[in-house]
């Protein structure tokens, strides 16, 4: 078997999916100090190059699509842009000695990790040795290439109208196929190694961004590679559109964490604070918007998970604040802008929850599990709002906490939770593989709940599920941005997977068959990396108490 049978496709990947974006990244770095500041790590530049290239290619295809021109014509604008940018790089960077635009930060551990991932995944290849959904995606890419349009006239696989799927990644594959003449399957196989590296790079940035510690970042990236996880850790599946979106999702966490670093001083008024934040973090906001657009046209769902993750962060911040006995001020937890955002979101959820229940006529059904499922988020929002207000009376605080805990623990299906560890106790699964399981509520109604077999059991046992407990311990022992985020996201994700009431509501609101992917928010590699670093620091302190 010729092991390098797809070697040429790697050259095309470099040209089509990195070169143009990387040159634009260098140009932006040479001109904008704020952009340069957060693209200093090599990972940030590579990812910037990748996503800009995807966006640029997508935009050119959109133009050709709207003019009803053949996609193979994209070589002209792409070539022009490439040569134009090369000339600009020479004129503005090389000639003006602005070499700081090329500089990047990397260390040997990260470099070796990425090299290892690339070599292993090059050797393993993509998941095309099985008849899986990857072929559905390749079929769509093939029809986009053949018809030269983002929306093939008669669907694609079976020749009948089909559901809309965000076409950016498929369009890029179609473009690669049209320009190179190499089959989509070969590209799919080759891209697996590249995107696997990009995903690990993005995860490093994410961990580094929220921890501000390179050791934690590197350890988290290593653990991301070796630990099982829900879907996202399947490196042989990296060429799927969802994994492109996961990569952008992690990059968004990195940029948003840096955005939070720019929170203005406490003394400022709300208006001053917001305008200062916008003026100092404009490039980060634009980057966040750009990455959101990439996700929206690639897989969509990760935008929701991004918002849910930071909302979970605010919940954890608020709850830890309400329990904290000291008066220590933690900017990542106690900043007044975060407080405003949190309260506003809670009020919006409560209003939306009531609207959703009224709109779906749940209020008219009488007392039922459906009604409970729809009212629970509203009641929880109100309780969280009350807890965010600092009560002078400890008694009131304890009472509200007890109600919150009663509601949360009362909504969990313990047979389902137990069946995570003992599959024999699993609830009745749905008809199709991806269908939800069915749990019976207090009033005998059927409620949806994610079946553990959906990658969840293999992804959560054991480091995943144990990391949620460890994250809460770390939040108590060492409250900071990382511990608040990982504890908040881990608890919220596990709660939605164990509570049929909350899961049923979320699936109804999102109208998304894979709502179980909320479990992607269990960021266990980061938790374990932080735990190891913290334990090691503690060990050093014990060895030398003066340190």
């Amino acid at each position: 078997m010729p092991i390098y049978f797809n070697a040429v496709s790697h050259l095309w990947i470099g040209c089509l999916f990195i070169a143009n974006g990387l040159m634009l990244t260098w140009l932006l770095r040479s001109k904008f100090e704020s952009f340069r500041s957060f693209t200093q790590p090599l990972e940030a530049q590579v990812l910037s190059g990748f996503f800009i290239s995807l966006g640029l290619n997508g935009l050119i295809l959109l133009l050709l699509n709207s003019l009803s021109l053949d996609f193979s014509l994209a070589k002209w604008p792409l070539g022009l842009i490439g040569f134009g940018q090369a000339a600009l790089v020479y004129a503005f960077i090389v000639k003006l000695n602005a070499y700081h635009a090329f500089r990047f930060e990397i260390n040997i551990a990260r470099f070796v990790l990425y090299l290892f991932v690339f070599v292993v995944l090059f050797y393993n290849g993509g998941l095309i040795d099985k008849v899986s959904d990857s072929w559905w995606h390749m079929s769509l890419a093939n029809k986009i290439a053949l018809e030269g349009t983002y929306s093939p006239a008669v669907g694609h696989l079976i020749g009948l109208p089909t559901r809309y799927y965000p076409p950016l990644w498929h369009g890029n594959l179609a473009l690669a196929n049209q320009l190179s003449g190499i089959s989509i399957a070969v590209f799919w196989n080759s891209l697996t190694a590249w995107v696997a590296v990009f995903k690990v790079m993005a995860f490093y940035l994410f961990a580094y961004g929220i921890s501000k510690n390179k050791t934690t970042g590197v350890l988290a990236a290593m653990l991301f590679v070796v630990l099982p996880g829900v879907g996202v850790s399947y490196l042989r599946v990296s060429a799927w559109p969802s994994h492109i979106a996961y990569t952008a999702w992690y990059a968004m966490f990195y940029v948003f964490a840096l955005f939070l670093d720019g929170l203005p001083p406490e003394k400022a008024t709300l208006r001053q604070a917001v305008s200062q934040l916008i003026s100092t973090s404009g490039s980060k906001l634009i980057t966040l918007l750009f990455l959101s657009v990439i996700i929206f046209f690639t897989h969509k769902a990760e935008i929701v998970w991004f918002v849910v993750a930071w909302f979970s962060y605010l919940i954890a911040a608020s709850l830890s604040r309400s329990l904290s006995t000291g008066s220590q001020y933690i900017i990542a937890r106690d900043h007044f802008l975060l407080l405003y955002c949190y309260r506003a979101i809670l009020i919006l959820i409560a209003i939306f929850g009531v609207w959703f229940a009224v709109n779906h006529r749940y209020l008219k059904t009488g007392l039922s599990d459906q009604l409970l499922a729809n009212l629970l988020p509203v009641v929880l929002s109100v309780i969280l709002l009350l807890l965010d207000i600092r009560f002078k009376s400890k008694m009131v605080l304890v009472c509200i906490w007890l109600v919150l805990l009663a509601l949360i623990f009362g909504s969990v299906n313990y047979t389902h939770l137990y069946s995570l560890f003992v599959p024999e106790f699993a609830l009745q699964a749905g008809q199709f593989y991806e269908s939800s399981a069915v749990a019976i509520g207090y009033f005998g109604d059927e409620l949806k709940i994610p079946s553990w077999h959906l990658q969840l059991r293999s992804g959560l046992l054991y480091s995943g599920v144990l990391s949620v407990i460890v994250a809460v311990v770390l939040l108590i022992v060492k409250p900071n941005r990382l511990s608040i985020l990982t504890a908040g996201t881990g608890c919220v994700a596990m709660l939605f997977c164990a509570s049929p009431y909350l899961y049923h509501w979320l699936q109804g609101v999102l109208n998304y068959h894979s709502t179980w992917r909320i479990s992607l928010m269990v960021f266990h590699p980061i938790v374990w990396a932080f735990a190891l670093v913290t334990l090691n620091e503690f060990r050093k302190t014990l060895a030398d108490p003066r340190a």
Partner: protein
Amino acid sequence: MRIIQKRLLVFFALAAVLALLVYDARPHFDKDLIQLKRENNSAQRNWSLFFGQRFVFYEGPFRYEDDMNRIRDLIEPGRIVLSDLATSYYAAASLPVYVRNVHRHQGREYSSSWRKLLNRRTACNLHQQDVFLAFNKFIDVEQRNSASREQPQFKYVLVNKDSNNKNLRLDCLWHRRALLMENIVRVSKLKYEGEFLNLYEINDRSPTSASDG
């Protein structure tokens, strides 16, 4: 004394965390797991030190590319191809055609006539006269319906002769390919004979030819 206790505690905590991480990381380094997964037809989603490109090469469509390229020039775009499950997906990803032999959640259930044909394994038993007549009738009805509904027309049968690709074994159309090739020529003509793939084009139908065979 307390410091020693604390040191021991930290040591055990570190050891426990590392042991858990090593335990969970094992699948990447487990050679037997690959064989076990292959025997159970389970996908190898995680990377493994022992999973080589040979699996992808022999159990993917790469070796059929020459055949696919030739076939691309011979077929009428926008038609429906009947093939085994795996080859159907390979064809959809590289040819300008549509397929109906797909997984249930990807549209197999959409057309009741195709669902019946595939679920009853009609095309696998063309050597039986009654089944052959049913298949013949199916072609007539399907071509008539697709014309009236302006949907893609069933025009080709693609037979994969490869014996190294385990994915092909999911379907009786591959297991009984010899019988299929022997009988399909009664309603079609051999358009292309390649190293791995044979393409048959369904004969043009006139009202009288429906009772042939």
